[in-house]
């Protein structure tokens, strides 16, 4: 298990848990980032926010938030 911020660009991962604090956690769940959901990491450049695709839409998120999402890698 690793956090979403550490998933390299081009990889797919399955969400295990979302434990972002307060309202951020709720917002993530409503945007479809729920346990079991598949996420594709489109861009991840170690400095800026990461870009992912979840349930068909692109989402940009700060690394602080991405670190609170635990995932399992699916494929390369």
């Amino acid at each position, binding site marked *: 298990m690793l956090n979403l911020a550490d998933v390299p660009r081009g990889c797919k991962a399955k969400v295990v848990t979302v434990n972002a604090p307060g309202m951020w956690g709720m*917002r993530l769940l409503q945007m479809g980032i729920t346990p079991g959901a598949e996420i594709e990491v489109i861009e991840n450049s170690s400095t800026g926010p990461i870009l992912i695709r979840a349930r068909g839409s692109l989402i940009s998120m700060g690394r602080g938030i991405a670190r609170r999402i635990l995932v399992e890698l699916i494929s390369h």
Partner: protein
Amino acid sequence: MKEITVAVAGQPNVGKTALFNLIVGQSVEVANWPGVTVEKREGFREHKSYRIRFIDLPGTYGLTATSIDQVIARNFIISGEADVILILVDSTIPERTMYLLLEVLELTSKVVVVFTKSDMTHSAGVHINYDLLEKKVGAPIVPISIKTPDSIGSLLDKIIEVHEREPSKQLIKVDYGELEPFIRSVEEVVRESSLANEFPARWLAVKLLEGDRDLESRLLKRGEIDLLKKVRSIQGEAEEILKLTMPEAIATKRFSKVIEVLQGALIIKGMPTRGRGEHLIALLYKPWIGPLISMLLVLALFTIVFTINTGFPLNVVLESIGLRNLASYIENYSLSHLVSRCFDYLSQVTSSILSDSILRSLIVDGIINGIGIVMTFLPLIATISIVLAMLEDSGLLPVIAASMHPFLRRMGFSGHMVFPIAVSFGCNVPGVIATRASPNFGERVRAWLTIAFIPCQARLIVVLAFATALRSLNGLVLMAFAYATALLVFMAVNKSLVIMYRRRRLYEEPELLLEIPPIHAPIPRVIWWITWNQIKHFLIKAATLIFLASLASWIMLHYTSSLTYTDDYSLSIGMSIASVISPLLTPLGFNEDLAKSIGFALIAGFFAKEAVLSTIAIIADEEVPAKALNILGVNDAQLVFLTIFTMLYVPCIATLVAVYSESKSFKITLSSVALMMVTAYAISMLAYTVATALMH
């Protein structure tokens, strides 16, 4: 005529603004939601002997609110005030956007569904069997595209149909699987609550289990704390057994239900391809190159806007390479020059008609001048709105925000602030209002305090005049120095605020969470709606304010403290106020009279920064500001002081009003004044000292 109230709800970016404008056309009325500055937009449409009232709710991802705007949307939906709820689903990403629909269907059956952007499904590879979907959802579904809006009529039919139909039982039941026993226990508990008279017990049970803050506080308000404790203990038990938090478990089940409903009715052919738009997104996402391109793009757009409106900065460039004629041509045919010439003409005509001197002065110097200032701003506001609307509608704005995020973080801002900062170079007022885009409250407070350090257009005009009045120093160098100083001060003050908040453990790292919609060519109709909305807003709000301000400054300049009219400004109310602050200016080598005059000009600048120049012109009795400064005997070092001071001191009154109406806090509003005054005085004193030393 019977009336139907329809709430229009959907997730952000679903196409709600576009559809709302399409349905109600010009009948939009803008008010505020009670207690907050969030705009409430309503419109009407008549259809088959009904008057249908549409209320545009702020975009929301689900029925648990995660921001101020969303609290409004959620509370309106659950209040039952609407006869019918219109839920929008984005037909290019149905799985994600049906979440809100599902949550609403758990509460009520008075729902009509619109699938938006139906023209785009084909290129997105999405195929939807609407008949089947309608059967599974139970509510009518109407696919609509704003490009070919022929199904609006059938949408209105469905709204009336649902309104006239007997309320049916729940249309969709989400199976929460292993959560069901816990939901049933909570249901037993909430049946005792007074809330059970207002909402279905099962819905209450699910929302409470999910940890809905608003329902919890409603329970507390009614003194049902024991009930809440029971719910919390069931919640804890469930989380322990299922090894998942309740919000996670519940959202997961809802999405499973969405997928089950879509099963068979939705086919997505092929993987989403990386179109041109996505290559652009990838480029802007690259470290270093991305932020650079974003910055250049925004800079280029604003340069064009300002050149059209004022001639700057193209005129300065042309002049410095020797093309004086072309430069003045561009200046003379810039929009704000054209508008101000019209008003000059109008004042001339009016003064030749009116003979009574007080009335003439009031109408010409006070009213026409005041309206003139407002109108010279109008083309600028309009063009800035168009540019921003294009950035917004094309989907570029969120990408730019994401690419600038790492850079802005260094001074405590997130990518959400790109837009407010960019707008502020034009005018601080819309900049302050645009801070709403950020979900980080701390970041908004810091922006309210400091955004007026960003040099707006009006300051540019004043500083330009100061620069021309210089005798031995170079004007362009002073301008560049002034801009650099303002930006450095903006960054440094924010950095210090961050350090201060961090020490007091009040600092929260500003975070970014943004949906990146597909990039496309802007739709002219949408651009027009957004722009028109902004212009109306400006004309109503800012105009009354600037108008009153110029009236006030006319009175201050033309009346003595015993309220009799005077032509001699040195006897006016303004001058007596100026004599209070003039001691602050004497250390700069101004004699007492001059210190008073300059002080008065600076006070006038509080109403609108351009007023600094017009006041100096009146005092010296010389129309050209640069000559006026020379007549008054202001030397180069003093001009350096005035330039920097004008750049940094007190936000104009319109900005202050915006800060107050956003923050609803006198403390924040007054702090921003204090912060700017102290910083401005200290830094411009320093600049004066350095300039004096340099010249000897």
